[in-house]
């Protein structure tokens, strides 16, 4: 392949967002006829890079060469016309239209509307050529997720894509559907298309990619040809050696098991199996860390323990009592505190005051509850106590919390959730988006709760954080607990392999 001009070259791409550098001088070469895997953890900058390539973002620095000539896309439309197509994780299809209509919709050639029959025939031929089995006259809402993905691919091909970018394509597929997808991908490559697969799954990379580019924290950390690096080496590249193994939690005496999860299985919002047969125990005074790339069942695990999602199988026990059915109320009453990932979306009510937010869990019990009434004086007293104890600066206890800073919001949330000596704390990405001081506070509070005997389930994408706070560390992959390692046996390589789902 060397010698020929690459189809696409990205040189020194830099893309900054307020507060972070998503791409920091990334180089990438894509050749016609190759399957190229873009490997990295969440937030490594994979999707940003592809959004730059497809004209959704404009790079702050660096250049894009197409067939050796520099191009500057000002809009996605121009990238599409240049032959670059992308299939996003979330499909962009019109549910009530047919497959053929979706494929033809918005494409520029032919300029005049093709007859219905001609359109159907064209789409059918295209589907046939690439072995993308889907009925052109079916309506989108009737299709499975895998079929919808095929429609997206057809759409890109119909518009003349020479380069097709697939963003985490297997995340929503069953294993059989994924196999069919990889057949299609190889077929396209053999016809001279270039395909980029964005992924974090090591097995997948090994199975389909001709070449692999690994991104970490916005930087290009390695390029390899198929077979050059084994999964272990790729995992190490992906997770990085710079993970600090130095800070580690001081060992504490653990008490009895407080949170007992047995064979827990649950489905995602889309109805797909998302959590499969997870069994774990968390003792009093223990922080059980859950690492892994987001979307591998972390959210479902947190929701199952906090009563927000029904279990399909298995059980969750808190202090020896099973939580029956999906009842957030039962979980709260059993002493489960929850620090959710979307603070302002579900943990706090943006439009209500600090006082109304402070009583979100306490409003059912005296002293805040007085018969059918909410006692205003007691609510106010509780709020002032929480704000003072956690040094939350609120504009006024009556102003909507929307106006508070991220750090203050998280402190208010922590104050409320730890106010009643919880038995179990489920903390999901508790320091995401916080500055150093905010992060420090969160860690200190979790530490205090741990010392006070709480059993803490810490779910985080931030490996540093998990390693600094948790013992043991479990890794979720594809809804399964891929492995649990005691803190002293945690090494980055091992964790990276588990996160990538590599089969040893």
């Amino acid at each position, binding site marked *: 392949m060397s010698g020929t001009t690459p189809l696409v070259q990205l040189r020194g791409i830099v893309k900054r*967002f*307020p*507060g*972070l550098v*998503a791409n920091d001088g990334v180089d990438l070469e894509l050749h016609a006829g190759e399957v190229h895997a873009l490997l990295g953890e969440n937030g490594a900058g994979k*999707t*940003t890079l592809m959004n730059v390539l497809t004209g*959704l*973002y*404009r790079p702050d620095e660096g250049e894009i060469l197409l067939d050796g000539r520099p191009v500057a896309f000002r809009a996605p439309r121009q990238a599409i016309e240049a032959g670059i197509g992308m299939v996003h994780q979330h499909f962009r299809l019109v549910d009530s239209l047919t497959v053929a209509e979706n494929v033809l919709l918005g494409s520029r050639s032919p300029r005049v509307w093709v007859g219905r029959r001609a359109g159907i025939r064209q789409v059918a031929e295209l589907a046939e050529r690439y072995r993308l089995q889907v009925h052109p006259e079916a309506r989108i809402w009737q299709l499975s997720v895998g079929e919808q993905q095929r429609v997206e691919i057809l759409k890109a091909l119909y518009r003349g894509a020479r380069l097709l970018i697939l963003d985490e394509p297997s995340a929503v597929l069953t294993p059989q559907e994924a196999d069919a997808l990889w057949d299609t991908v190889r077929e396209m490559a053999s016809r001279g298309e270039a395909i980029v697969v964005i992924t974090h799954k090591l097995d997948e990379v090994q199975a389909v990619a001709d070449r692999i580019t690994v991104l970490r924290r916005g930087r290009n950390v390695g390029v390899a040809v198929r077979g050059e690096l084994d999964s272990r080496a790729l995992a190490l590249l992906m997770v990085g050696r710079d993970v600090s193994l130095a800070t580690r939690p001081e060992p504490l005496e653990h008490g009895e098991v407080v949170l007992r999860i047995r064979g827990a299985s649950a489905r995602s919002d889309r109805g797909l199996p998302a959590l499969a047969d997870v069994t774990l125990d968390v003792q009093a005074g223990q922080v059980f860390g859950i690492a892994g790339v987001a979307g591998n069942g972390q959210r479902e695990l947190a929701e199952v323990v*906090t*009563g*927000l999602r029904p279990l399909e199988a298995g059980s969750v026990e808190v202090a020896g009592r099973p939580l029956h059915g999906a*009842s*957030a*109320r*039962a*979980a*709260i009453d059993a002493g489960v505190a*929850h620090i*959710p990932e*979307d603070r302002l*979306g*579900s*943990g*706090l*009510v*943006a*439009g*209500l005051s600090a006082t*109304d937010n402070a*009583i*979100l*869990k306490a*409003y*059912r019990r005296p002293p805040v*509850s007085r018969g*059918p*009434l*909410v006692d*205003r004086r007691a609510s106010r007293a509780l709020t002032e106590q929480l704000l003072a104890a956690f040094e939350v600066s609120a504009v006024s206890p009556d*102003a*909507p919390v*929307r*106006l508070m800073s991220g750090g203050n919001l998280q402190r208010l949330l922590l104050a409320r959730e730890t106010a009643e000596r919880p038995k179990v704390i489920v903390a999901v990405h508790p320091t995401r988006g916080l500055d150093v001081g905010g992060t420090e506070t969160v860690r200190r509070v979790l530490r205090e709760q741990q010392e006070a005997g709480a059993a803490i389930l810490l779910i985080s994408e931030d490996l540093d954080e998990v390693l600094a706070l948790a013992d043991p560390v479990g890794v979720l992959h594809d809804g399964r607990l891929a492995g649990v390692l005691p803190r002293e046996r945690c090494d980055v390589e091992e964790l990276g392999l588990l996160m990538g789902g590599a089969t040893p």
Partner: protein
Amino acid sequence: MRRLGPLVVEQRRVASRWTSALVRVAAIALALGLGALILEAGGYSARDSYRTMWDAAFANRDALAETLVAATPLIFTGLAVAVAARMLLWNIGAEGQLFLGAAAASWLAFSFPDAPRGLLLPAMVVAGAVGGAAWAAGPGVLRASLGVSEIVTTLMLNFVAILFVDYLVHGPWRDPESSGFPLSKPFTTSAILPSFGDTRLHAGFLIALGAAIVVWTLLRSTRFGYEVRVIGESQPAARYAGMPLRRNIVVVMLVSGGLAGIAGMSEVSGIVFRIQPDISAGFGYTGIIVATLGRFSAPGVVVAAILFGALQVGGYALQTTEVPPSIVQVLQGAILFITVGAEVLARYRVRWSPGREKRTPLAEKAP
């Protein structure tokens, strides 16, 4: 932030309470100005027309009484819509619930014509509430259990309710002495709400004020009201806090329907003293406007209802002049339209800033 030449339009973090009140007053003024233009364009004197309307609505004791009479059903239906809207439920069916409430109250009045007034009237209020609540129960349960849009179901049930009352007065409840008009026979005196002096203002107005106070307390000071506020602001947060979403949807719809049902009772027992097809001049629909203008708060609803009552009474007065009374509908529509539009604008602020700023495409947000 958007830039239009040298102007920068940006979002305010909070729309202050004062801004919001000011917006409403300004919207009413603007609507009256618009109405004046229309009147003048039609060759009528805006000054005289507004004078006539004002006199009819506020000039003396009788005028004020008429305004409050017209406001009474609107307070009920406005509260009904507002309570539901607080939880992001849209009860478009206050009209039908009003009819059902009227029918239920009338049924009591016909069944126990000789019962003592002190017993019959409270019972009729309860019957009205139950009738209205029953009519809202179906949409509530469907929304809670299957997610069926309450907007559609409540709206469709309006026609059913109106036709049901039509059937009653044409059929079983028809007054044999009505010489063919679809009217029920009149209520006995014990089924008639007392009125103030020689005016038409009846005790229904006091019940309406009482209902407003109850709704205000319910939303402000009770656990149920707290849950309604949280659910209205953020369903994920309500679920997170373990609040019973489905149950509250049903309960709120029952309360909403009940309030609209009492409006029906108050009209048949306080104004027409019988049941007939034209007991409501679209009060259920006007209630939606009243609730919106009143920012879905109980005190706001009372003020907006009185304003709309005055407009209605003023409109009747215009009928004696040459001015087309439909100007009132124009005014009502304009007030709503301008207020809602101004509400949105009040959330932004326009700044003069001719400096060049780097343009950032809208699509670019941090991932």
